[in-house]
């Protein structure tokens, strides 16, 4: 009975750890729950940059170099509209299974999930969160969400 309870506790702890996003970095050892979203290291940032389209890369670099003003300038150069230093993004997750973890990462970083479709998340994300998101193993690629749907009228 005690063993069963212990197994239950361990199972619950594992589930909680999964929920806190440990598996976002599946290739690394699990982290304690309190450090579920640590700042990504330099290698992860470099790997993450390959996941970004040119506009997002420029915005992120602008932000890292000159803060909000730098991001705003880069965004304007790429005809991207920022809403209070947040950008509309289209995030392709590594699989549909990791979508909840990515959604959690977004909401914990003051972003707002706008829609989800299979392994794709559409979200309004603070510029400051882009690097962290891109460094997550759960994220496959990220692009600016361009509002290109339009009426087929002449």
């Amino acid at each position, binding site marked *: 009975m005690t063993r069963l309870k212990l197994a239950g506790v361990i199972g619950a702890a594992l589930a909680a750890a999964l929920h806190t996003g440990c598996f976002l970095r599946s290739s690394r050892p699990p982290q304690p729950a309190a450090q579920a979203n640590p700042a990504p290291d330099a290698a992860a940032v470099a790997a993450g940059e390959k996941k970004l389209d040119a506009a997002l890369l420029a915005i992120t670099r602008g932000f890292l170099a000159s803060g909000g003003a730098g991001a705003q300038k880069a965004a304007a150069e790429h005809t991207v509209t920022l809403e209070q230093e947040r950008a509309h993004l289209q995030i392709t997750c590594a699989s549909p299974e990791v979508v909840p973890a990515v959604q959690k990462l977004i909401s914990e970083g003051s972003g707002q999930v706008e829609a989800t479709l299979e392994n794709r998340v559409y979200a309004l994300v603070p510029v400051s969160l882009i690097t962290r998101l891109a460094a997550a193993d759960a994220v496959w690629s990220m692009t600016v969400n361009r509002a290109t749907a339009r009426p*087929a009228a002449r």
Partner: protein
Amino acid sequence: MTMPAKGNGRLLWAVSVLALALIARGHAVDAQSRDTDLRSLARQVRSLPGPSAVEVRAKAAFSSRSSKIQHSLLQLADEFGARGERGLASKAAELSVPVEGRDVTVKLVATAEDELDALERQVRQAGGRIVADFENTLYAEVPADRLEGFDDSRALFHMSSPGTIRELQQALGRPAPLSEGVGASRVRELHDRGITGKGVKVGIVDFGYRGIKSLISSGRLPQPKGVKAVSAPDFYIEEAVTTRHGTACAEIVHDMAPDAELYLALIGDGRGRAGPQDVVNALQWLADQKVDIISYSGGGQLGRHDGNDAQDRLVDQLTAKGILFVAAAGNEGDSHWRGPAVDRDRDGFIDVLDGNQDTGGVLFAAGGNGIEVIVEWDDWGSNPQLPSATQDIDLQLWTLVNGTFQKVGQSENQQQGVGEPLEFLRGPAQPGQIFAVRLVAKSVSRPINVRVVIDGAAEMLPVNQAGSIGIPATARTALAVGAVEVSKGQLEPYSSHGPTDDNRLKPEVVAPTVVKTMAYRSTQDPDGRFNGTSAAAPHVSGFAALIKQAGARQNVEQLRRTVIAAVRGIGTPVPNNAYGYGHIDGSTIRVGFTGVTLPAPPAAGGGASAAGIGVELPEELGGAVSTRTLERLWEMAVDRGEDPDVRVVVGQREYRVGDGMRIGFRSEVDCYYSLIHRSAEGQFTVIAPAGGESRRLRGGERYALPANDRDTITVTEPIGREALLLVCAPEEIDLADAVGNTRRQNLRLSIAEYSVVR
């Protein structure tokens, strides 16, 4: 920055061609002729007559008591104040102003179109009712004692008796004026026989429903069963919405299926743009409402065109839930180029071929104040959910300044095994400004096709329509709709064409466009013409609602196939990637005393087996080879015309289902042959010899199928245009290799077409 001389020369040559095209279409007029035109107009203006006595009196009719309200309306207010409704009625009759009880029908012109909502609110606050609105003008019924109160309104420019309101009221009082598309689609008889879309739920996803309130209140449109503003605070707050596009779509669905129930979802920024997240949320809401049909007169080009875009997959999921998805094919037929990504002259730029001439880039003249450029290539990787582009192409945008091209923009996404094969640029433009899109072949190591789509181009060079179908009309289960001009019956040049990048036929059907609507009526355009594949799609949505009612037990796939069958074929062959299977046609649906007879749908799916397609052949003659290869052979045959040395013939031009049929063929010289059948649905099958291998054909001798010369082949459904393609070559033909460069020169091709009818 100046372009290298070699590229510049090619581009300037192309600019000359483009300029000639523009002049030919009247886009460019030289300064001298423009001056002449203006001078002649000035003379006309000077010779115009002065104001007549009537006009002078009319001017005096505006009272000094109010600068904004017509004198006769103030007289009515005075009469009502003095003698009540009876006095009002008497005076109104004298002045020919419509009055109902204490309410006077008036015309209110707003100071600007964006003040219309404020004016509407004031009318309601005064206890009035909106009858209709066109541009910056409201027609309303306002209590007589509240008329003068509008003098203080900042939103009101002036108020007068309605003038044309009687005509308007008469129009509104009649049964709803029908879109001309109703006639062109031949559904009136169905309406008369009770097939009106009753019990069918149609959802519309659209970018704006401005003016819908007045069309509902006037009875032109029914009250929707459900509305949803996906990204706006409220569906009926029209202040921030400038487009009437959705209102016009709702009108057309209602015209086609007057008893269908409407569910309306509003997406986007109110100015006609929306992100995919809005589309996703709108579609999910409509699915929750359990609609039967979704009509989407929108879309885009930013994504993959092989049916595996995320939105395509969502459409397929909706279909799996039993919802028919009808989508506008798109308007990019005249602003689209697609070709192989090759750099034959090794100048670092992908060759953009106009015939045999490399134009150096895609040239276009801007039509307005903004442009968007999309470059996409077929390099998405094997997993539809994880884009994995490896071929790297960059986009450069150049513009012509004082006869020299200067670079004004670039898009340089890195394609290194992660991410999408896409480049995108958006920017300002002046009408008539010349641009060139150049494609940098940064890392292209295998054969791919690249497409360029320009939004905002008045003219573009080169253009090819093939493959210009928009997303999500690309979805496998979507019913994509092309646009036919309602009065001419011809495909509009902008109507997007198939096939998809995975070589599926699109669009499936065509429907009317440039139709009259109430939503778009204005003083500039009294007919309110609605143009684009946007107008065509809701015709098909309404049409599908009729079929849904008529064949209530049909599942969504049967419904889709029945719509495809309920057409009159256009073009050669049928189906084709411009008109699909043809124009929707209600006369194909028979309504009798014993019930409704729907047209027989084409066979489902494809496959390489001869069974189940138009010609039932002996089993041993069935063969299998890549459909794509066979389609390419067909295209080669069409391009080259018939070879006089080989001939395939069928006995009749038209067969009835159940008829016997024999096929004859011969070649003037010894050769090997393969015979390929193209069904009414566009499916290809190698019918002789079996297995895709060729057989010897002796020169000058006539051969026939079936081979023993006694039996005939039985013609079966589906009905429609079919064809046989005879492929001959001096050596044995490996069909899988037949379209390769080394083989195609040796091929001799002959096509025989025929129709199967019931």
